[in-house]
C-alpha cells in the first residue's frame, strides 16, 4: 500500500506540473494585460506607457513564456528575487509561488493564513452532511416504499433542486438579516486559536447551510446504495443465520453500502476543500475560494495560479485517500 501511495503521489506531481503550466499559458496568452493591474495600483491610476513598459520588463512579460515559466518553477523549488517597478525588490523564499500583484505580499504566506478558514468550512460542513445524510438515508432505505420514505425523498429532491448559492443566500438573508438571530449575527472566520467560541459561532451558519443542503444529496446516495445492498444475497444469508435486524442492516448492509457513497464524498470533499466560493462569499469567510474569486477579477496571476494548484493538489490527495479507504473497507480491492 505504501508503494501505491508513493506512486500515486508521484503521478500527482506530474499532474500538478501540467496544471501549473496550463494556468500559466492561459494567462500569458489571455486577453488581459497583467502588468496593467500592478502599474495602475502602483501609480494611483496614472500609468503611462513608459511606466507600464518598466513593469512589463520587471515581470518578465517581454521574455518568452517558457523562460518565465522556468523562473517560476525555479522559484517554487529554490526561491527567487522579485522586483516590482524600478525601486522595490523582494526576496521570495522557496516554495515561492510569487508575490501578489495587488497586495505585494508573498502568495504562499497568504495561502497559509487563509487555509484554516477554508478547512474549517469544509470539514465542519462535510461532517454535518455525512452525520445527517447517511443515517437518514439508511432509515429511509429500511422503510422504503412507505409514506414516510416517499415524503422524505420528494421533499429532499425539492431542496436539492434549488441552486446552492440561492439556498445559502436565503439562509443568510433570513437567519442573519431578517430574523436577526443573535447566534448567527456575525458570520465569518475568526481564528480558532484566539477565540474558539467566536470561531464556532462565526462558522455555524455556513456549516448549517452546507450541511442541510449536502445532507439532502447524501441521503439520496445512501438510501439508493442501501436499498441495493439490502437486496443482495449476503443480506439474505445474514438474515437466515438468525441475526437481529440491526445487525443485518448495520454490520452487513451499511459497510457495503458505504463504498459508493465514499467515492462521491471523496470527489466532493476535494472540491469543497479547494474553495467553497459561494459559501465563503455569502458568509464572508476569508478563505481560499474568496481569494481565488478576487484574484481572477483583479488579474492577479500569481494568486490565480497558486489557488489553481492548491485545488488540484487537494483533489489529488483526496482521491488517494478514497482509494486507501476503499481498500480498508473492501478486502477484494488490492492497491497496486
Amino acid at each position, binding site marked *: 500500500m505504501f508503494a501505491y501511495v508513493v506512486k500515486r503521489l508521484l503521478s500527482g506531481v506530474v499532474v500538478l506540473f501540467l496544471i501549473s503550466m496550463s494556468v500559466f499559458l492561459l494567462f500569458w496568452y489571455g486577453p488581459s494585460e497583467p502588468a496593467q493591474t500592478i502599474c495602475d495600483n502602483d501609480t494611483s491610476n496614472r500609468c503611462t506607457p513608459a511606466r507600464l513598459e518598466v513593469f512589463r520588463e520587471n515581470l518578465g512579460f517581454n521574455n518568452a513564456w517558457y523562460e518565465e515559466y522556468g523562473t517560476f518553477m525555479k522559484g517554487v523549488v529554490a526561491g527567487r528575487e522579485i522586483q516590482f517597478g524600478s525601486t522595490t525588490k523582494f526576496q521570495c523564499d522557496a516554495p515561492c509561488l510569487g508575490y501578489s500583484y495587488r497586495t505585494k505580499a508573498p502568495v504562499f504566506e497568504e495561502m497559509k493564513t487563509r487555509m484554516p478558514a477554508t478547512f474549517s468550512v469544509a470539514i465542519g460542513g462535510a461532517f454535518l452532511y455525512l452525520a445527517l445524510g447517511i443515517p437518514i438515508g439508511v432509515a429511509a432505505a429500511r422503510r422504503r*416504499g412507505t409514506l414516510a420514505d416517499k415524503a422524505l425523498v420528494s421533499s429532499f429532491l425539492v431542496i436539492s433542486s434549488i441552486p446552492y448559492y440561492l439556498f445559502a443566500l436565503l439562509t443568510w438573508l433570513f437567519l442573519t438579516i431578517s430574523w436577526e438571530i443573535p447566534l448567527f449575527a456575525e458570520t465569518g472566520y475568526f481564528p480558532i486559536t484566539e477565540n474558539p467560541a467566536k470561531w464556532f459561532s462565526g462558522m455555524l451558519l455556513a456549516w448549517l447551510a452546507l450541511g442541510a443542503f449536502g445532507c439532502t444529496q447524501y441521503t439520496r446516495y445512501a438510501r439508493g446504495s442501501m436499498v441495493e445492498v439490502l437486496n*443482495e*444475497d*449476503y443480506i*439474505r*444469508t*445474514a*438474515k*437466515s*443465520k*438468525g*441475526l*437481529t*435486524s440491526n445487525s443485518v442492516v448495520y454490520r*452487513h448492509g451499511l*459497510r*457495503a453500502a458505504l463504498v459508493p457513497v465514499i467515492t462521491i464524498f471523496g470527489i466532493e470533499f476535494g472540491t469543497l476543500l479547494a474553495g467553497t466560493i459561494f459559501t465563503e462569499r455569502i458568509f464572508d469567510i476569508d478563505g481560499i475560494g474568496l481569494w481565488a474569486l478576487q484574484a481572477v477579477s483583479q488579474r492577479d496571476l500569481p494568486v490565480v495560479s497558486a489557488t489553481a494548484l492548491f485545488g488540484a493538489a487537494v483533489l489529488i490527495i483526496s482521491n488517494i485517500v478514497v482509494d486507501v479507504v476503499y481498500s480498508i*473497507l*473492501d*478486502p*477484494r480491492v488490492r492497491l497496486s
Partner: protein
Amino acid sequence: MTITSPSSAAPASDVDGPFLQVEDLTVTFPTQDGPVQAVKGLSYSVELGKTLGIVGESGSGKSVSSMAVMGLHDAKSSEITGSIRVGGTEVVGLAESRMRKLRGNSMAMIFQDALAALHPFYRVGDQLAEGYAMHHPKASKRDARRRAIEMLDRVGIPQPDRRVDDFPHQFSGGMRQRAMIAMGLINDPSLLIADEPTTALDVTVQAQILDLLQDLQREFNSAVIIITHDLGVIAEMADDVLVMYAGRCVEFGTTKEILTKPEMPYSWGLLSSIPEVGASTDARLIPIPGNPPSLLKPPSGCSFHPRCAHRGKVPGDLCVTELPELTSASNRAGHLKRCHLPNPQEIYQTEVLPEIAPDLAEETR
C-alpha cells in the same frame, strides 16, 4: 398420542411425526398490478433423517415456499397463510424475535452461488462464528472461532485453522459452497434447506458437494429439503420428490416412483429434458414447449394446459375449465398427481418413454 413413552416429558423432542409439516401454504405478494400468488395450497412434510427433493422450473414457487419456512419473507410485502410447523412450533405468524431464535439454529438454509451469498467484506471464519455466537450467547469469541474451524474441517476444507481467516474471494467455488454448508450446520440444525446448492459449481465439484451433504445428513440425522431443477441431483439425494408447477404441487411420490412411473405430463417434460450420458443416440431431448406461466394471470383450469401436449386426450374442455385435484395416482398409495388424464401410465409407456429412452422402453415391454 395414545402410548405414553418415558421420554414424553421432555419438551420439543417428543414431537411425533415429521419434523417439518407444511399444510395448505399460500404465499401472496401484493404488487402494483395485483396480487401474485407464488405458492398455492402447498402441503408436504419431511421427517428427520429424510430428504425431500423439490423440483420445478424458475418461478414455480420452490424457493419462495422454502423462504417462507425460514420466515425470510418481508412481512410488509408478503402475505402467508396456512400452517408451517417446525419441530412442533407453528411459524406462520410467529413473532420475529422468536422466529430469529429458530432461524440458523434449528433450521438453516444453504443458498446457491456462495460467492454472492457470503459477505465479500468479512472473513469466512468470522461469518461462521457470527452465526454460532448469535445462538450461543454464553460462548466466548474464542469458542466461536474454534467451532468455526471445527466445522470448516468437517466439510473438508484443508488447513482450516489457516483458511478460517481468508476472505470468500480467496476460496475456490467448491470451497465456498463447503463453507456455506459449514455455516448452515454450525448450530446442528434439525432441518436443512439446500436451495440449488450445486447449480453454480462444475460437475466434479457438484458430486463432491452432494456426497458431503449426504454424509452430514447421516451424521446429524437432520431433515433435508433439496431444491433443484436437476433430476440427477434428485436421483442421487432425495427419498421423496415434490414436483412444483406455477406455485402448486403437481406430483408427489417416492423418488423411484417419480423417476420411473411419473403420471403428470409436466414431470414427463422434465424427464425428457435431461440429456443422459451413455444414452443411445436415438434418444431425443424434448424440451417443454412454451414458457412458464405468468403468476399474475395464471391460466384457467390446469396451469400446465397451455403447454401440455396431451390435453387432447382428456374428454371435453376439462383441462381449460377445471383445476385437477391432487389425487392418488394409479400405482401406489403415497403417489399423488394433479392431472385429468384417465390413463397416464399407458401414455407414458407407449408414447413418452419410447421417445426419450428407446432402450428403456424395450426393457419394460
